[in-house]
């Protein structure tokens, strides 16, 4: 079979060939295996940073049992429960936020990293945008687009987000909720 040489940086070569060796594979076989899949993934629109992101998010998700559901279905389930037990539902979302803070803080100990972390998780959520913007040293603005397709879902997302912000020692001073969108202003607790 004809072979082609491709030039790579030494550092990349060292890391990659070390992995081939650790798996008892020839570098030729290992390279071909990976690059044939990579070529297909790249054609489908995947980039190295997107791949790195999902790899990281999956390793975090392994810490808990998760289930993936169509978001319209979840919106409908939320809307039903909202009609019969709104406070119970909002408390559930708040509790979920509080229970996830510990895991999030392992990935990003301070709030500045949440935007970057959200980019990795965005593929697991119907969220179009999650942005944390520092207003000054002690206050932030959080913008979410894609927080469900019903107002009830956006309200639940707010409860969840507020619990997470509280976990990072931020308190919400103001918020705006619309269908599918959420904007929150928060300040570092004890700053004012």
């Amino acid at each position: 079979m004809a072979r082609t040489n491709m030039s790579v940086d030494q550092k990349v070569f060292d890391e990659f060939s070390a992995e081939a060796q650790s798996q008892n594979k020839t570098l030729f076989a290992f390279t071909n295996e990976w690059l044939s899949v990579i070529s297909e993934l790249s054609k489908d629109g995947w980039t190295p940073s997107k791949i790195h992101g999902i790899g990281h998010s999956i390793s975090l998700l392994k810490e808990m049992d998760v289930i993936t559901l169509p978001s319209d279905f979840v919106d409908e389930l939320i809307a039903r429960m909202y009609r019969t037990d709104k406070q119970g539902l909002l408390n559930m979302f708040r509790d979920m936020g509080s229970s996830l803070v510990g895991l999030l803080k392992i990935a990003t100990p301070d709030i500045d990293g949440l935007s970057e972390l959200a980019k990795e998780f965005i593929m697991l959520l119907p969220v179009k945008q999650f942005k944390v913007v520092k207003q000054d040293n002690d206050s932030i603005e959080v913008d979410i687009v894609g927080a469900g397709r019903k107002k009830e879902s956006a309200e639940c997302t707010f409860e969840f987000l507020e619990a997470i912000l509280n976990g990072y020692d931020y308190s919400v001073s103001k918020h705006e909720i619309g269908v599918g969108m959420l904007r929150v202003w928060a300040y570092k607790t004890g700053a004012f």
Partner: protein
Amino acid sequence: MAKASVHLDGPSSLEIASTAKSEEKTIKAFVNEWLLVAAKLSKQGWSPTKLQSLCDSFTLMKEMNAITLPSDFVDELIAREYNTDKQGLFRMFREMGSQVADVVKIDAPSIHDLTKVANEFLSLLPLKIFKISTDGQENNVEIVVVGAGKRRESTECAFEMLEAFLNSYGFSVANRQINVGTIQVQASRHNSSNLPTA
């Protein structure tokens, strides 16, 4: 920076060159970027096949506009709604089963392909086992699911979804065994004269 070489077989190198060109990158830049990511993923236990499966499942998720939630949380949501409107809840799961089947059928046109799709999704579902066995002509199937919720309500809902799924593939459930977290189902193709034996 010091350079080294990797060797590729002819077809692979052509593919890489073509893909790099379509992204307006040099082959070297493309290969450097990707091999670095591949080395990191490999260290974390990923293989090219597993990565391909994961990316396929993410693509499917995007098509379904899906959301990933802690399964305990979803169990609780289901349990509360079960106590309020059980039949309405079952209807929702049946509708979801039919809609998801329509999307899944693109990648899994036959019942036997469902195992592959389920395995791709395993990291995004709390399922421990999803096994499909068919007879030679695929007229009868047996499906075993372990990890279908931690409460009976969730498992019952998962059954409703699975039944709708099977209906979409042209199968009717003949027998079922449901316990907390586990489902065992025997189903036969609609209008098949080969019914499963007890």
